[in-house]
């Protein structure tokens, strides 16, 4: 989990209370920031149809967005739902990583969240595996 995209993916799915608590730890060190956006909005989700090869819209997903700047660097947070504090926390962690502020702690936070998410997925997939069916034709 080293790429920026992977980090953002983990942060967007991280536990809201934990990421908010972690962002509080970073705020003082980051200093003053300019908030470019802090809002809820919609992300349209398209899908590719397998029968006709056509891209079409499934519908919109409500998301909370935070876009902040400190000097030349920007932090960005986008998460499902209406929790503006959680998306702002994600933007703060993103900005901290890019500014090298508490980077090892930020990476460790992401790694811990990634482990929790993987564990949750593993548990879900084991339950799904229990429903696997092998059929015989008589």
């Amino acid at each position, binding site marked *: 989990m080293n790429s920026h995209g992977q980090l953002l*993916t983990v942060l967007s799915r991280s536990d809201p209370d934990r990421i908010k608590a972690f962002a509080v730890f970073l705020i003082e060190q980051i200093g003053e920031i300019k908030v470019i956006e802090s809002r*809820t*909005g919609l*992300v349209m989700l398209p899908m590719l149809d397998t029968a006709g090869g*056509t891209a079409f819209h*499934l519908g919109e997903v409500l998301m909370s967005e935070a876009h902040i700047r400190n000097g030349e660097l920007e932090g960005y947070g986008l998460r499902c739902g209406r929790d503006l504090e959680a998306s702002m926390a994600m933007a703060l962690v993103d900005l901290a990583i890019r500014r090298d502020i508490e980077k090892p702690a930020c990476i460790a936070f992401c790694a811990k969240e990634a482990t929790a998410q993987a564990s949750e997925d593993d548990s879900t997939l*084991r339950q799904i595996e229990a429903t696997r069916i092998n059929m015989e034709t008589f």
Partner: protein
Amino acid sequence: MAYVATRGGERAIKQSERLFRAAMGKIDAARVTEVKQALPYLVDRVMGEASLYDLDLAALALAQTGGELYEAVLLLRAWRTTQPRLCVAEPVQQQDLFTHRRISAAFKDIPGGQVLGPTPDYAHRILATDVLEGTPFVPEPVEPGAKPSPAYQPSVSAWQAKNDLVDLPKPESLHGNDIPDLTREPLLFPSKRAHTLQSLARAETGGVLALGYAAMRGYGQAHPTVNELRLAEAEVVVKHPNGTAFSAGRVKISQAEVVSKQGEKLGLGFAATMGWNEVKCISAATLDLNSKGAPKGTPTEEEFFLYHTEGVESSGFCIHFKLPHYVTFQSSLDAMRDAKAKSVDVAKEPVK
């Protein structure tokens, strides 16, 4: 059409709304949470029809309307218009879906196998009346598998194409705002395929089932077999301002492919929607399968099924008939009386 303005109804209108809301009582966050947790499939259905994915808002809409689904969907669609569009995500592809349920009624040995996932399909339908006598119904826990199921599964139709059973067109490379969008442009006929599929994705479940069922019973050209039914979670892949792609979260979606024999190959119908709603997807895919060359005015003709399964418009049109139509109705009565008077006059005339 003509209406007549009325005065003096303000108090009655206010009290009637109070009477409606009195049935639901106080609505608080706890009730919304309860609706969300207790009725996930209803929440899914409302999100799909509203074309707006947010569990909390959908549960709130259900709580606020007392489960009046058309009103709940209308509330959500209205609320949606207050929000800006942030962006268009990358198109979801079947093989990238985090799959919970995947079955095929056409082939038992599909690549990746079949997982039933969460379903009451094979259970006895017995009402747990003991609950009413004070004995809670506690579901038995799942006994997890020794290993996890693969999260991602290939598309069945891609496997069929490799085996020369279906002809799959080359996928479009449209992205972002280039994809036709019904919420920003009108539905015109013949409909663009992107409009047809988007319209079905947000269509009213009961309407889609009624017309899909008509096609299944024989009022269509092709009998469907479920090629692949999938309940899954899709990643919402967006871009950071610096261009980095990432997933901003997962949402539940369902999709169905149905097939029927068409000449020497299989013909495919497809549908998908937000939330988990199998009946809607199978019915909608059946309509898609049958729509090509369907006679005008039949349930499987796209203009017929797309117009008549748009829940907000159709329910809105239906309930508008409750509004005062005194002038138009009076006009009909006048015409009836006039016709009656003329026929009496004609009858009185002596036969020559």
